[in-house]
């Protein structure tokens, strides 16, 4: 599916082991920057150091194949994405997001979104992918997580439009990265 107005391609999957793994695999075989890998569920979603990221149904889970940045600019990617996620929350909903630097976004003291950027680097950047897990329409978290995680649905008491949020994040990120990518 290609949205000509938005200028990015979305590859949708019913379920994936991990969108970042899929994104890296596609990038290795030559997929273009701004290819989006979207899934409804991740069987083995992971965060930093491979810690599990629970991907419950209703959430927004996607990875972006990023254009190759300069090595010096890599460290700003995650922060920019966290900023865009927070901005999307603030502009669309009556919620006050908090950026837990560098890679998480909180609402009311609980995590609502997390970002994991992964790069393959030699003398220069070979592959750069960014995974975003956004707790959008998650109804309820398991007991062990309900004090640390929340969703937009829980905070707002209503469903949100995952597609619209995805588009706003990608468009916003693209705008931000213009200054630092090829």
């Amino acid at each position: 599916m290609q949205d000509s107005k938005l200028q990015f391609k979305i590859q949708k999957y019913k379920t994936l082991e991990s969108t970042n793994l899929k994104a890296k695999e596609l990038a290795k075989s030559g997929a273009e920057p701004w290819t989006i890998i979207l899934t409804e569920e991740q069987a083995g979603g992971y965060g930093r150091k491979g810690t599990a990221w629970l991907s419950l149904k209703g959430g927004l889970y996607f990875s972006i194949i990023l254009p190759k940045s300069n090595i010096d600019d890599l460290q700003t990617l995650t922060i920019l994405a966290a900023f865009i996620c927070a901005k999307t929350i603030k502009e669309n909903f009556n919620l006050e997001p908090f950026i837990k630097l560098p890679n998480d976004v909180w609402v009311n003291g609980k995590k609502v979104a997390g970002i994991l950027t992964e790069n393959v680097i030699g003398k220069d950047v070979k592959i750069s992918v960014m995974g975003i897990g956004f707790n959008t329409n998650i109804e309820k978290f398991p007991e062990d997580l309900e004090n640390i995680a929340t969703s937009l649905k829980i905070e707002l008491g209503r469903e949100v439009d995952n597609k619209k949020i995805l588009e706003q994040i990608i468009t916003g990120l693209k705008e931000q990265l213009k200054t630092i990518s090829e």
Partner: protein
Amino acid sequence: MKTDIQIGDKVYQIEISEPQENLLKVIVNDKEYFFTKNELGELSSIEDFHPSLKETEIIPKGRMEREIKSPLAGVISAIMVKKGEKIKPGQKVVTLIAMKMENEIISEGYGKIKEVKVKEDQFVNSGDILITLE
């Protein structure tokens, strides 16, 4: 495939062949050049190709690196190679976490590991030597 290419007044005789899988041979006016693909599918040149190896096993002598340096500051989270191991272009050598971002550091050339200079959980600065090669 043979062809002639003229650049300015000079004519170069070019011959391109693939003597074995993943080995591209280009002859320019009797001088031989060899290229191979790394794991990322990029073509890299094999300089000073040893004549005796041409028709047999490829152990490229060229494109040898002396060391692999850290491209950015961060903490080493995993080391995938050990002393004495032969590495090739595109091969993962270490994983480095920087600003909660995971970075697979790969080798750009061929080589044999002389020493792994870092340990897991060690902080490194950009430019620090991670691995030395023989």
